[in-house]
């Protein structure tokens, strides 16, 4: 490196650091990949919300689906609820994991606001929540047809999240399912 070019070295380093820090401004530290990505949904044996039927992993497999972790104490869940209903109306299978909630309150919620879920797992103690690595509702998991976790979204699912993040992955998995 010539001595003239060497003079620019601090400028290069500064530019590099500036780019790095600028990028850091727009990173969301709470957006962590789930430890479960590409691993099967943990086995569970929990009652369904509303009846005492026991649900297991097998009840959630068979097609590409969303698993939505929600609770009546979770304010953001109320925000995303109307959009989940829209998604369910377009035929996207959504399963619910009612996380650390009272069954009565949860059923009241579904009666009042509508029910986008195919079925709901009543995880009263949060045991499946811990196995899934849930750290705060709402969280939404994308499951493939064999019940393997492919993606986790933390926070509200709205139209923006669905269109830019979840739908492309969903369609890709759907495609893989139909042409094995």
């Amino acid at each position, binding site marked *: 490196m010539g001595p003239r070019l060497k003079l620019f070295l601090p400028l290069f380093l500064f530019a590099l650091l500036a780019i790095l820090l600028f990028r850091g401004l727009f990173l969301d530290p709470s957006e962590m990949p789930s*430890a479960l990505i590409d691993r099967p949904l943990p086995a569970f044996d929990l009652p369904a919300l509303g009846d005492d039927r026991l649900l297991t992993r097998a009840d959630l497999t068979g097609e590409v689906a969303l698993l939505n972790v929600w609770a009546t104490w979770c304010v953001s869940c109320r925000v995303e609820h109307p959009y989940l209903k829209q998604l369910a109306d377009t035929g996207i299978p959504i399963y619910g994991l009612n996380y*650390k909630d009272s069954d009565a309150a949860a059923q009241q919620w579904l009666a009042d606001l509508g029910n986008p879920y195919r079925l709901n797992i009543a995880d009263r103690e949060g045991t499946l929540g*811990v*196995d899934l*690595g*849930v750290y705060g509702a709402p969280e939404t998991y994308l499951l493939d047809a064999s019940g393997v976790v492919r993606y986790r979204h933390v926070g509200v699912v709205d139209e923006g999240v669905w269109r830019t993040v979840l739908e492309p992955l969903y369609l890709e998995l759907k495609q893989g399912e139909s042409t094995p």
Partner: protein
Amino acid sequence: MTVLRHLLLSVFLLLASHAQALIETYDFSSPELEARYQQLSEELRCPKCQNQNIADSNAPIAQDLRKLLHQQLEAGASDAEILDFMVARYGEFVRYRPSFGGTTLWLWLAPVLLLIAAIGVVAAALRSRSAANRESTALSAEEQARLQRLLDKTEQDT
């Protein structure tokens, strides 16, 4: 009298708020388990409130993880088993002292590599500077002659 009553009331209120702020306590079958509980709860990071360990955090998930930690310790799990359990669910992120290897390799090696690079840069700078110094102090024969002429000239002038 009313002053005293007010004073007493405020003292009691202060005590009450303090009692509420305390986090739950667990009973351990041995002091050794309790010490391990303290150590592990300080080493495990709360996934929700990312700059606190689960011992300090009041988030519901931290409470759940403390409860789980207590259960597992009482069930006789080893430290490694408990940490593996947590990492399998919440990722390497939950450990304030991440394991060595895999994706955390860079985390461990980066400071050492940066230190070596910094020493290299400083050493190179020092070497080039001392080389430059040696060059500048030594006069060539031509410069020596010119200096001599200048000195002779000033002597003549005075």
